[in-house]
């Protein structure tokens, strides 16, 4: 893999950029691999990357039915934070954040991680108490967050209206290390690095069945024939239920539509990410200048990648109230993704009833920010056959035992 | 004071009104009873007749007779409308007529706010707020739906619409109706 740098660009510019090599190969599948990952989204690619990097397992295929990074990785609002309340969540999201901080250098691909700071507004006294609880918890978890007052909020976000008659801003949970990254670049950077390690990323190939013998996985049937494997990782987000069905087990997962939108671009006016959970909206400004806006999920199962428009309206009403200046911006584009929600809205990184078959799913609305940590933990699980500490509590049997990892308790939503 | 005094009864907004391209006004207080019973309950039809003087309403209908009315709210719920001061007696009548039948009759007069929207363009005011096909609304049809962000019900007569919502959100509904009725914002 030729390294990317300003010098490489200058060199290539001299020959009109005719010499750039492919970011990743498009190989035909081999007969078998040590490990197959189904799903070339951020989580699947990161799993493959850390299998290679941390465990030296590089005889790996990542099989993708569409184009890599084409699911939720390429559809989310790119928020990154780790100020979660519950210990297992804080651990894995903070691991992810730490990895994000060095990811551009690690992958030699600029994922434009922008630690611009993230605010979660408290607009009721109940929310204030919930976020204070999070700050106390984060301090013990080694996650640096702070509570800031309304004046500081206004200083960080000059366009905000903190004196709204209905929901004045009473303060905010602030994570200075939080921010955004360029979502596509995360998938592309991992894909390029995986390919460089000799892994095969096989796009436009759909898994149609999972073959097993004596309760142990043997490989997958695909639209390009059978591909054998010693270990199988299912990392397919909204379609987890379908693939799990092929592998012979059921999941506590439902697939729902989540929507987002961007405005037309304007000059920089907001340097931080703002989440307002009382009114169900969050907003940041992309490097292009678009205001990137997200809201809540639909309540019914849906695989169309289209959501219900009233959620967009609810979000925009709330944001116009909080940021009156956006009223005369224009919505440029709205879209939806399919999120996989578990019974406690926390993910599953787990062994499964099928031997040597592992699953990573249920990230709901919080998937993007977890990608590096999720891949790290999943790679450890697949390599060792047992979960490491990051994944241990995210096993799929916790529901039976009642050991929930519930983030909604602290007035927080998951995005 | 141990005997019941004559307490002035106030509606949620004290009869607020707004004159736009249609006239919006809060009316009431009106007497309202929620009556829950299955339609096949013996004596139900007679009980309703005794209280409102109307027939038992069929699905989605409201039977109106003067100041009184009986509306179909769901397969086992009726809304009885009558003068505010008649409610006590009406409840007693229902209790008597349905004594041995499984039913529930409660006074909800104070839990509601009632509006009238009047004028040629009255339907345009509601068209802005309710996701209901008003052109397909028949006279005497009771439509339960959403009015902007709250639950509401309405029916139409010769001079306009009667709109019912919860009392606590009367101010919100008045605000939404007034915004919608502003001169210059006629739809057609």
């Amino acid at each position: 893999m030729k390294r990317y740098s300003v010098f490489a660009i200058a060199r290539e510019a001299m020959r009109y950029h005719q010499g750039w090599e492919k970011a990743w190969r498009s190989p035909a599948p081999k007969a078998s691999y040590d490990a197959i990952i189904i799903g070339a989204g951020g989580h699947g690619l990161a799993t493959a990357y850390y299998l290679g990097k941390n465990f030296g397992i590089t005889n790996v295929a990542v099989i993708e039915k569409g184009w890599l990074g084409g699911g939720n990785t390429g559809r989310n609002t790119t928020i990154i934070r780790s100020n979660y309340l519950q210990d297992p969540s804080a651990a894995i999201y903070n691991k992810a954040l730490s990895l994000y901080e060095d990811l551009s250098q690690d992958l030699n691909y600029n994922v434009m991680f922008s630690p611009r700071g993230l605010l979660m507004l408290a607009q009721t006294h109940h929310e204030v108490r919930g976020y204070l609880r999070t700050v106390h918890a984060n301090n013990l978890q080694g996650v640096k967050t702070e509570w800031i007052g309304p004046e500081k909020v206004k200083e960080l976000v000059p366009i905000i209206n903190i004196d709204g008659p209905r929901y004045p801003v009473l303060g905010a949970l602030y994570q200075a290390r939080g921010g955004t990254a360029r979502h596509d670049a995360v998938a592309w950077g991992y894909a390029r690095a995986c390919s460089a390690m000799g892994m095969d990323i096989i796009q436009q190939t759909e898994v149609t069945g999972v073959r097993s013998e004596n309760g142990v996985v043997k490989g997958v049937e695909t639209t390009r024939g059978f591909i054998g494997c010693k270990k199988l990782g299912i990392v397919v987000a909204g379609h987890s239920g379908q693939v799990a069905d092929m592998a012979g087990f059921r999941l506590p997962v439902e697939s729902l539509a989540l929507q987002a939108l961007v405005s037309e671009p304007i000059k920089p006016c907001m340097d931080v990410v703002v989440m307002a959970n009382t009114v169900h909206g969050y907003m940041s400004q992309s490097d292009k200048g678009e205001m990137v806006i997200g809201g809540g999920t639909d309540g019914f199962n849906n695989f169309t990648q289209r959501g219900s428009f009233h959620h967009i309206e609810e979000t925009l009403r709330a944001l116009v109230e909080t940021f009156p200046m956006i009223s005369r911006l224009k919505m440029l584009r709205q879209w939806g993704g399919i999120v996989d929600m578990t019974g406690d809205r926390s993910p599953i990184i787990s062994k499964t009833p099928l031997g040597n078959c592992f699953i990573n799913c249920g990230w709901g609305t919080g998937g993007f920010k977890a990608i590096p940590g999720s891949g790290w933990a999943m790679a450890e699980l697949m390599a060792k056959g047992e979960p490491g500490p990051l994944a241990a509590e995210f096993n799929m049997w916790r529901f039976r035992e009642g050991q929930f990892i519930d983030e909604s308790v602290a007035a927080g939503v998951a995005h | 004071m141990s005997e019941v005094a004559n307490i002035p009864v106030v509606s949620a907004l004290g009869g607020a009104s707004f004159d736009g391209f249609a006239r919006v006004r809060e009316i009431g207080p009106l007497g309202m009873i929620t009556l829950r019973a299955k339609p096949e309950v013996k004596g139900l039809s007679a009980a309703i007749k005794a209280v409102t003087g109307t027939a038992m309403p069929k699905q989605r209908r409201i039977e109106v007779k003067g100041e009184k009315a009986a509306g179909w709210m769901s397969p086992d719920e009726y809304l009885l409308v009558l003068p505010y001061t008649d409610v006590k007696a009406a409840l007693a009548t229902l209790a008597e007529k349905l004594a041995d039948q499984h039913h529930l009759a409660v006074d909800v007069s104070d839990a509601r706010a009632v509006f009238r929207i009047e004028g040629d363009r009255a339907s345009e005011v509601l068209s802005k707020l309710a996701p209901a096909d008003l052109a397909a609304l028949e006279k005497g049809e009771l439509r339960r739906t959403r009015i902007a962000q709250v639950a509401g019900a309405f029916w139409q007569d010769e001079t306009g619409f009667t709109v019912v919502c919860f009392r606590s959100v009367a101010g919100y509904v008045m605000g939404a109706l007034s915004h919608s009725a502003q001169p210059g914002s006629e739809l057609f």
Partner: protein
Amino acid sequence: MLILECPYCGVKAEETELSPGGEAHLKRFGPGSSDEDFENYMFARKNPKGVHFERWRHSYGCGKWFLAARCTATLEVFGTYPAQTTEPPADIIDKIKAKRPDWKGYK
């Protein structure tokens, strides 16, 4: 923005008049049930990409819960029916089978 006809009041309600309530025809398991039965009752969901049976409440209308057969991939609605039943009615099953010959059937 779905339209579902409420089987109780006959209103073709739009989605904002309704509240979704998840998978239909779940059998409740209470005290005395096995861990597995209880877990399945509480958490395991069919989540099919295709024909699905689900609960809706006509919350801004008559307040009644009803059930709907709907395709989660195209959002086509095959029918709605009252909630007081433990299985989808035969006419709806027949209608789905006619429209989706590949459908594996309810259960």
